[in-house]
């Protein structure tokens, strides 16, 4: 018995002696040189398998069961040596910060906040807890925002000495013997509490807070860490009963959030700061149409914020995303921000420019695919492929806009009923259709906006909808909106995911399924189009299938308004250029699908047309290997004809049609005898000529003999 145990243990030890290899695969050339295209999608299917367990996801990724996976900083060792995987890294807009309740003792002392800021060793935290994947940030508006960020704000470098100095300068006293601090009123300093939730997957935040606390305790500051469940912390933050917390803040690509974060009574102002000077600056920043003015005001506001220090920025993350080495077409936003929407359109397998499946995992099961109640990133990861917005971030410069459903827009300041208003006109594209075939028009945009204004869905209801006065739809592809006041941010807040009026405006449909808040459109059948659900958009992918807890499957939208022209059947026609009436017109057609493999199940119709009228028609018969042949009797036809070949084939559930034309000239039947006739004439002419010549010669001869005799 004992021997078995020893053997077992030995086996375990031997197993761990796997040789260590090191190999880092660079991104494939096709990915490196990829120039994004605003058309697609290149793949046929977008499969989103759900892996609630990160280990399971990583195993699937290493095995090649999925094409991409987010790589946690601590897990990078496990994938970086895999030759079948390459990693793309980019900086995100996520800022980690220490948020402080400036109303609570002892955090209400600015000096305490500044001293704690001096005690945050950002380098240590990033290196040891995040394995180096991050950039230390000490400006309230991170430098990632380019010229929005003021580089000359007061900063609080890590230094215990400076921390002490700040406190002593502010009237705090330090009893070195007891290692205790006393506030300016002479009372012993109370606990400075940092609250942290147990981070999603590891106790990183706790470790981080613990480190700050230890730094503080080493100079006698009573910093304490309190672990608290995320939900409970959120409750406390909203009710402003929290002390201070370390969390992440997802800034958008424009720093509009600053207005709500630092303004008196701002909806994100959990810290309870109130400074008239700051308020004025923020008003200037927000309510102006002039970006230069906005930036100037924000620069000044940042200095003020850095002095008040309601929140202490810590670091901005760097994300690593792994891809299988046969994937190309990933579009990263420049200079930072992550993957562009265009990745959805461009991603494909190398060696297979069109077709195939892109498998992108989800980390949680989407609760609902309702764009007005969705919250989690995974829910939006699905819907982003289906619903579209008026414009998107430009992949080459993230702060710029790339027109999408709107081809252009115009912002004006005017007056309406004596009030200063902003008038924004969007000019929409006229070739966009919903996935069920209906046309996308300005009325849909109008509907979506009013839907948000009336129903106030929590995620989309921004200030602009509160202040929206009226909209006008002068024609199908123009929409004008009037918003009270002036702000450069209106444009961005109006850019919401568009929903079709003919679904969402159907009151009885919504009511029958529990109302707009409760229904999940992906679970309701489309009222008219079989095979579709009520979750339809204008996007490149159509919601196809879902198994709770397992996967979500999207199929490409063959009628996508930005469909890639090369993604269709490739049809080659060879036929005679001319023939005579009554002869058989032989047409040979080779049909291949967009992946390059011969299409054997196609229906190929050959029409002979003249002036748009079909004169004759035939169905080509498959000869094998994607080659089809048809022969058409041409008796009764003359003149120039168009051979129009219509090939139809179904590829992974989508019917593709491709029409290719060629021309043929049909000459009258007698023309084919022309050479003979000519020949005959020639012969006859020659014969006649010869005859006459002979006759003439004979006559001459006779004359000669007559003279002689």
């Amino acid at each position, binding site marked *: 018995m004992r021997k078995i145990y020893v053997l077992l243990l030995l086996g*375990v*030890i031997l*197993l*761990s*002696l*796997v*040789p*260590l290899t*090191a190999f*880092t695969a*660079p991104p494939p050339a096709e990915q490196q040189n990829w120039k994004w295209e605003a058309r697609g999608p290149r793949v046929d299917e977008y499969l989103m398998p759900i892996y609630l367990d*990160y*280990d399971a996801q*990583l*195993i699937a990724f290493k095995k090649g069961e999925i094409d991409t996976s987010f*790589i946690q900083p*601590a*897990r*990078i*060792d*496990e994938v*970086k040596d895999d030759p079948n995987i390459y*990693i793309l*890294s980019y900086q995100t807009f996520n800022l980690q910060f220490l948020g402080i309740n400036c109303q609570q003792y002892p955090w209400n002392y600015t000096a305490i906040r500044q001293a704690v800021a001096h005690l945050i*060793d950002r*380098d240590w935290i*990033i*290196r*040891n*807890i995040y*394995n*180096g*994947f*991050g*950039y230390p940030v000490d400006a309230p508006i991170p430098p990632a925002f380019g010229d929005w960020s003021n580089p000359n704000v007061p900063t609080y470098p*890590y*230094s*215990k*000495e400076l921390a002490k100095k700040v406190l002593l300068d502010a009237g705090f006293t330090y009893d070195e013997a007891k290692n205790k601090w006393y506030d300016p009123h002479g009372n012993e300093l109370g606990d400075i509490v940092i609250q942290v939730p*147990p981070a999603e*997957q*590891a*106790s990183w935040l*706790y*470790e981080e807070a*613990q*480190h700050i606390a230890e730094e503080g305790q080493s100079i006698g500051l009573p910093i304490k*860490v309190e*672990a*608290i*469940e995320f939900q*409970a912390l959120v409750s406390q933050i909203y009710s402003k009963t929290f002390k201070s917390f370390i969390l992440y803040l997802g800034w958008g690509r424009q720093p509009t959030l600053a207005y709500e974060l630092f303004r008196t009574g701002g909806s994100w102002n959990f810290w309870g700061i109130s400074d008239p000077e700051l308020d004025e600056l923020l008003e200037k920043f927000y309510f102006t149409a002039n970006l230069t003015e906005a930036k100037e005001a924000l620069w000044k506001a940042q200095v003020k914020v850095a002095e008040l220090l309601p929140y202490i920025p810590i670091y901005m993350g*760097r994300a*690593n995303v792994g891809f299988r080495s046969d994937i190309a077409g990933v579009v990263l936003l420049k200079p930072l921000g992550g993957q562009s929407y265009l990745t959805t359109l461009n991603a494909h397998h190398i060696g297979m420019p069109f077709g195939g499946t892109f498998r992108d995992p989800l980390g949680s099961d989407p609760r609902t695919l309702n764009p007005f109640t969705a919250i989690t990133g995974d829910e939006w990861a699905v819907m982003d492929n289906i619903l579209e917005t008026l414009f998107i971030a430009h992949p080459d410069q993230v702060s710029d806009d790339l027109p999408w459903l709107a081809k252009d827009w115009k912002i004006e300041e005017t007056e309406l009923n004596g009030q200063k208003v902003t008038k924004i006109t969007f000019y929409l594209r006229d070739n966009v259709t919903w996935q069920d075939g209906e046309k996308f028009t300005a009325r849909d945009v109008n509907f979506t906006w009013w839907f948000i204004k009336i129903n106030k869905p929590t995620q989309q209801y921004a200030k602009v909808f509160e202040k929206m006065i009226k909209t006008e739809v002068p024609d199908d592809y123009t929409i004008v909106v009037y918003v009270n006041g002036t702000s450069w941010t209106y444009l961005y807040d109006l850019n919401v995911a568009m929903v079709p009026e003919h679904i969402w405006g159907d009151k009885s449909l919504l009511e029958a399924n529990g109302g707009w808040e409760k229904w999940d459109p992906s679970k309701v059948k489309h009222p008219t189009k079989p095979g579709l659900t009520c979750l339809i958009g204008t996007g490149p992918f159509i919601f196809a299938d879902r198994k709770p807890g397992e996967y979500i499957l999207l199929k490409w939208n063959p009628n996508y308004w930005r469909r890639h022209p090369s993604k269709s059947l490739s049809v080659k026609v060879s036929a005679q250029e001319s023939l005579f009436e009554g002869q058989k017109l032989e047409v040979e057609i080779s049909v291949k699908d967009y992946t390059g493999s011969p299409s054997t199940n196609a229906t190929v119709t050959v029409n002979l047309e003249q002036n748009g009228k079909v004169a004759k028609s035939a169905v080509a018969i498959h000869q094998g290997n994607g080659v089809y042949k048809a022969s058409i009797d041409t008796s009764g036809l003359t003149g120039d004809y168009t051979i129009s070949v219509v090939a139809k084939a179904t590829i992974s559930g989508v019917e593709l049609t491709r029409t290719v034309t060629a021309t043929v000239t049909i000459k009258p039947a007698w023309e084919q005898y022309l050479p003979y006739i000519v020949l005959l004439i020639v012969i006859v002419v020659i014969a006649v000529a010869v005859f006459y010549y002979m006759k003439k010669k004979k006559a001459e001869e006779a004359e000669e003999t007559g003279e002689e005799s």
Partner: protein
Amino acid sequence: MMQKTKVKNSAKKPSRVKAAVEVLKLIMKHKKGLFGLTILIVFVLIAIFADVISPHSPDELGLADRFAVPIWFKNFPQYKDLPENLAVHVGAAEWNFKNTIPSQIQVKKESSGWIIFKVKPEEAVSKTVVQLEYDFEYPYSPPRRFEGNIPYKVTINGEPGSYAKILFYIVTPEGKSYLIYDSRSIAYNKTMIDPPARFDARDIALKLRLGFADYEDIGEKIFSEKGTYKLKLEIIIVSVPRSTITVAIGPLYFRIPGLAYGLLGTDNLGADLFANLIYGTRVSLLVGILASVISVSIGLVVGIVAGYKGGIVDQILTFFTDTLLFMPVIPLLIAVSVYVGKNLYLTISLIALLSWMGFARNCRAFVMSLRERLFVEAAKAVGASDTYIIFRHILPQLTPLIYITLVLNVPGAILLEAALSFLNLGDPSVPSWGRMLYNARYSGAFFKLMWWWIIPPGIMITLLAMSFILIGQTLDEVFNPKLKARR
């Protein structure tokens, strides 16, 4: 633990000591009991002497590189060359001066390891480059990273224009040199002592500057072979006329954290896993015993009151006990832990509050049977008070049952606490075994097949729980003849 309880009792009734010793002797007679007791004593000793057994506390981070393997792995051929911690302090005495220092520069080496360069005012602009080198042997396979720091202080007096620059390089045996730290031109007074200038192979900026991808380990690239490496410090001092510039360089600290460390290696933050394992004993023993004592106390009070009083009191208490028994304990514990957990003592109380019902029922049944006995009836007839009867007649009869339950409740509490910690519902500041397994799971120890991290805590939990079960069973067997009535 047994002894402790007994000592408490003995304070009241000295005769109990003898009884306790008797019980202990009886336990020792049983093979099972002896085995259980031995394990328990070992665990108690570990808990008491945790500080002595483990050289580090589980809170100490960065003892070696993260995910280091146990040091004894180096006995296996594949791991023979794994790097161990390697640290050098290079002070004034250790640096080799590579070039001659111009005469206008005063060099002062201090015993504390600092070197002070002082440039006196000159008539002309002068530029001096001082090169310091230090050679060291790197005898291991490539490490993952390196780290270190240089304290320095630059003081500039006089006309503007003077500046100093401090550069730190690592030079490989092949002669390739990597610029690791660049202070940039310092044209003002600057003190880098608290904290000193730090460098670390994990910094993204450093990786990108040296031309590596940001997911690569540059320690592995730079220390790619064994041999003599050079640490090179370059100090550039430019001084303009009529100004004094002083550059003080403190002892350089350079470290390559090992990939083999300690008896059980390190976790994802470079903390000693062995320390975690040892200190975890304290937590588990505390949880087990405290929870068991609380739950037995509650059960005892409820059981005695219900059993002795009878009638409506009994009905209410029994009903309450039954209701709690009907609740699914683990799900309820999880649901409630979510908002009251995160603190060891709260967890202990919760476990105790949801596990006393079984004992209360046993206790009630036993007390009910005792109540009918002659000696109780007799005492009642004499006019003895209820408290007197309970303490004098009933409690002594219950003692064996209390002991057994006390012991047998411990493993349940230990296992529950471990399970809660494993689900991350435990106290994060406490180094428990469950938390150790939780960390293992969420930092990819399974993926990395780090069995030396996963298996030991499990074995410890099992052994500790088993020791209590064995002692409990032995006690049961010892007391069983006297306890027939409870069946």
